[in-house]
């Protein structure tokens, strides 16, 4: 299997992952560490894009790896680690949203307001525009709009957009992650994109 720029930013391959999993299953702690480091960016990105809140996303992303660690004994090495982790992430995000819903609170992403972290640093839910040409501020603004619209989508719609248009998964991978048929992915994705466009048009 060749390098996949979305799933393997370190330039590794699925074969490397399989080897790491094998080592981790055999008790190699450093191998598990490596798996975390390799995939944390993707897992965090999925969580952030589904939940819209950085702190929640970090918390859930950690939980993903905790669950993966506990279940690693049963992971089939022929499967793709990244897809496996993303499906765990999707599950946990859904649970987290329901957790908040039960407490009658919605995770509100104030994307325009800076979020103060423990160290007093200021972070935004969306990538901060680097100081520079005005255009970069404009594109960050555009990204904020998109994120805000994304969070208004239904869970199903948002899942489709995040997995396909933000994370770059194939239809087959999405079917595997979301646990549905290929045809379902096709139609859900189509509807989700129409919805998103309607939201974006309405926001301008």
């Amino acid at each position, binding site marked *: 299997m060749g390098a996949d*720029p979305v799933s393997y930013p370190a330039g590794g391959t699925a074969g490397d992952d399989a080897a790491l999993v094998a080592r981790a299953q055999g008790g190699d*702690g450093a191998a598990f560490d490596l798996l975390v480091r390799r995939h*944390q*960016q993707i897992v965090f990105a999925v969580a952030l894009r589904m939940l819209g809140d950085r702190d929640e996303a970090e*918390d859930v*992303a950690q939980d993903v790896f905790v669950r993966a660690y506990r279940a690693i004994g049963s992971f089939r090495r022929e499967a793709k680690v990244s897809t496996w982790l993303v499906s765990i992430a999707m599950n946990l995000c859904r649970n987290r949203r329901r*957790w908040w819903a039960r407490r009658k609170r919605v995770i509100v992403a104030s994307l325009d307001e800076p979020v103060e972290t423990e160290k007093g640093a200021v972070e935004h839910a969306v990538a901060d525009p680097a100081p520079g040409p005005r*255009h970069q501020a404009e594109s960050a603004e555009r990204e904020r709009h998109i994120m805000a619209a994304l969070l208004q989508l239904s869970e199903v719609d948002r899942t489709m957009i995040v997995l*396909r248009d933000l994370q770059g998964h194939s239809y087959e991978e999405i079917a595997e992650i979301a646990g549905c048929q290929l045809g379902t992915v096709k139609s859900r994705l189509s509807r989700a994109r129409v919805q998103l466009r309607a939201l974006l048009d309405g926001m301008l």
Partner: protein
Amino acid sequence: MDCQTYQRWFSPYIDGALSAEERSQLEAHLATCPRCQTELVSLQRMLGTLKMMEQPHAPDLLPGVRRKLARQPWWRGVLERMTGPWRLPWHSFALAGTAAVALVAVGVSVYLQRGVQGGMKSNADSMGQSFTNREDWQSRSDSHTVVTNDAFQGRGDESGFPAAEEPAGAGKSFGGNLGHAEKSEVRVSSPPTEVTIAIPQRQESKEAELDSDGSVLAKDKERQVPNDSASCKAQGGVWGTFGLAQVQLCNMPTSDADKECTDAGQCESRACVAPAETAPGQPATGRCHGWTVTVGTCLNRVIGGQATGTLCED
């Protein structure tokens, strides 16, 4: 078939998921329907923007993951001892020092959680954000939080903490153990209702720092360029033959066309174009080229704020 039906095909068309027949049917319709053309382009633009969105900067999750794995209820440690030869021995982890620190942290956090037992349920909302592992939290009873050092395989003695702790319900008080916690040197800077501890939890890994340095340039994100004429067209590009080598490429409109720039690195096309008449070496501000392919073009490029003079690329 009417426009509305055709427009439902746009999404799979862009992803190359239509059959060859459906695709040619749609393209035939598009050739005669300006309204559908506009709709398609609008959708392609939106998807193009989504595709190019920056990946969020992820914090280093590993310390938090380890911390959560260490804070297991007592029965989990027993369970794992009984099953799975795959349990990872913690002393084999690279950062052994962190494990010792985590132990102390864990002891302190137990102390704090015990301290706010009474107000736990009512404070749930405000503390909600502080629960670092809701899964585990819900899986054990609210009345006690227990830490074992089963996961640490006997290192408890070294750090001054007891080897194992039983649930409060069993009658053993935490008092003696807490003595250790109080004397520990870990300073808790947050108020007792918070479980967070003043241990650096968000240490950026070296890799992350390099990444953020690398992103000084315009989005280096790999844009998956269509490699056949059908998908090229479906995504809004133009398939053509370029340069002396007569290479076949998909020429895509760039997302930052006409953006002001002072260096090639700022543009998706890697071409920041100045007016042709700007002399080489002159300070210049240009605008990003509107297409991804520059082979076969003659451009006056701006690099490092200076014009290079019109050069042709073969």
